[in-house]
């Protein structure tokens, strides 16, 4: 337990020390989105699916903040440590592959959670933000956070240069999140975009979180939870396999 605690402490301490970049900047970005899409454009849009537009976008923004920060933190942390070879201190310790994986996962998971919780608390002060289904919301957000934290670990392990990490974030992750329905309801889209959206896994994640907050869902909530759990579990097992074999970590 000491070992796992210290591995996790190292990961958390890294982003706490550079909080302006790791917490401050994402929070500012999230509130700029709320200002622009909520306060400025929201008054023109009015209601969406019977909900005030500002309230409609907040669940997606909370999910986006958690997902992107969990991913970015872990992919960057692992790649930096690989470059510096400082990860060798952990790899040559008696820590097990599971302990290493979980600690590196938690670093980004907790950073994303911190930003998401602050966003939720401040947003609750600004608008009347309902939470209709706490268990679904908590389960959904935790699964999403864990999934993207695992994805960050995977990309960080595979990456050989910083370009690899930024490519994954800019060209894969962000388009999937933006096109998953953070700022709009997929039901408003014309065909074939509406159908195409159903092939985007993030669409189900956003729908799940929005259901937790607003009580509305375009998708089958139970099925989405099950599929998200399976996807997260599969990613976790893949990463554990990579840590056990030492893929791109041990020569």
């Amino acid at each position, binding site marked *: 337990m000491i*070992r796992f605690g210290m591995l996790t402490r190292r990961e958390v301490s890294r982003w706490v020390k550079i909080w302006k970049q790791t917490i401050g900047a994402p929070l500012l970005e999230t509130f700029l989105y709320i200002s622009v899409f909520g306060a400025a454009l929201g008054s023109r849009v009015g209601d969406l699916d019977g909900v005030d537009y500002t309230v409609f976008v907040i669940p997606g923004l909370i999910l986006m903040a958690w997902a992107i920060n969990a991913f970015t933190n872990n992919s960057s942390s692992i790649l930096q440590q690989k470059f510096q070879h400082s990860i060798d*201190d952990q790899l040559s310790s008696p820590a097990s592959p599971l302990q290493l994986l979980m600690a590196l996962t938690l670093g980004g998971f907790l950073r994303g959670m911190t930003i998401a919780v602050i966003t939720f608390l401040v947003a609750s002060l600004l608008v009347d933000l309902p939470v209709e289904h706490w268990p679904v919301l908590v389960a959904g957000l935790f699964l999403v956070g864990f999934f993207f934290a695992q994805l960050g670990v995977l990309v960080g392990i595979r990456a050989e240069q910083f370009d690899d990490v930024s490519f994954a974030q800019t060209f894969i992750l962000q388009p999937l999140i933006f096109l998953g329905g953070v700022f709009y309801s997929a039901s408003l889209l014309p065909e074939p975009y509406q159908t195409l959206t159903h092939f985007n896994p993030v669409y189900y994640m956003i729908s799940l979180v929005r259901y937790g907050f607003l009580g509305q869902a375009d998708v089958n909530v139970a099925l989405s939870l099950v599929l998200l759990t399976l996807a997260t579990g599969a990613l976790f097992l893949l990463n554990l396999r990579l840590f056990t074999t030492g893929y791109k970590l*041990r020569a």
Partner: protein
Amino acid sequence: MPLAPNTPSPARPPRHSDGPALSVENLVKRYPTGTEALRGVSLEIKDGQFFGLLGPNGAGKSTLIHCATGLAVPTSGEIRIFGHNAVDDYAEARESIGLAPQDINLDWFATCEEVLDYHGGYFGMNKKDRKERVTELLDAFSLTGKRNESTRTLSGGMKRRLTLARALMHRPRLLILDEPTAGVDVELRLELWQYVKQVNAEGTTILLTTHYLEEAEELCDQIAFINDGQIVAEGTSEALARKFQVGSLEDAYLKLVGRNELSRAHVGGDAL
């Protein structure tokens, strides 16, 4: 700045398994590129020895160390650390090893204190023990004044000292020093010699790789030559000189790498 004479206490965890400090049998390491860095290495380092591993660049010294510490995965063969298999019983095996790597690999985001504290935690030391040990090591390596400073602000010599302190943090029974004095000034080199001699005298087994032959002669009671992924000779400094039918360890080494013409004996003779 001289290293403080009060060296840290050598108290170690109890022995769980007997056997040589390091036992390597028929170790092969082939990289995915096809390069065979180790080609059937067998080696034994007895508990308490100060063992030198010498060889030219690319001979396989660091690869052997990486296989022993878990930074590389052996292709075949067996490594045991005090009787524990380095692959199957990696946790027990690694608990006994302290590694000071060739290249400085300190965490940029950590202070000197954190570097040692994290390392102690990775090796399961409790908070009280870590706190005492950190104070002891920072004092011993004249780094107390840098306790809360980021590793990025340290000079090269300080980074080297902190790397050695980190290797000693969990009181390893086998200390592996991979070219610890490469690029350090004479003063620090002599200080480090003094320090590692004392650590060895207190019972810690040491495996040293170096390109400085006088360093190996000064410190090591047993030396092995590794070349092209194989151990080609082993013995004391004098025994190796005898084996290669030359007058010094340096000449034995030059003969091994096929550069006898560089021998100082020859150069001196030619000059006369």
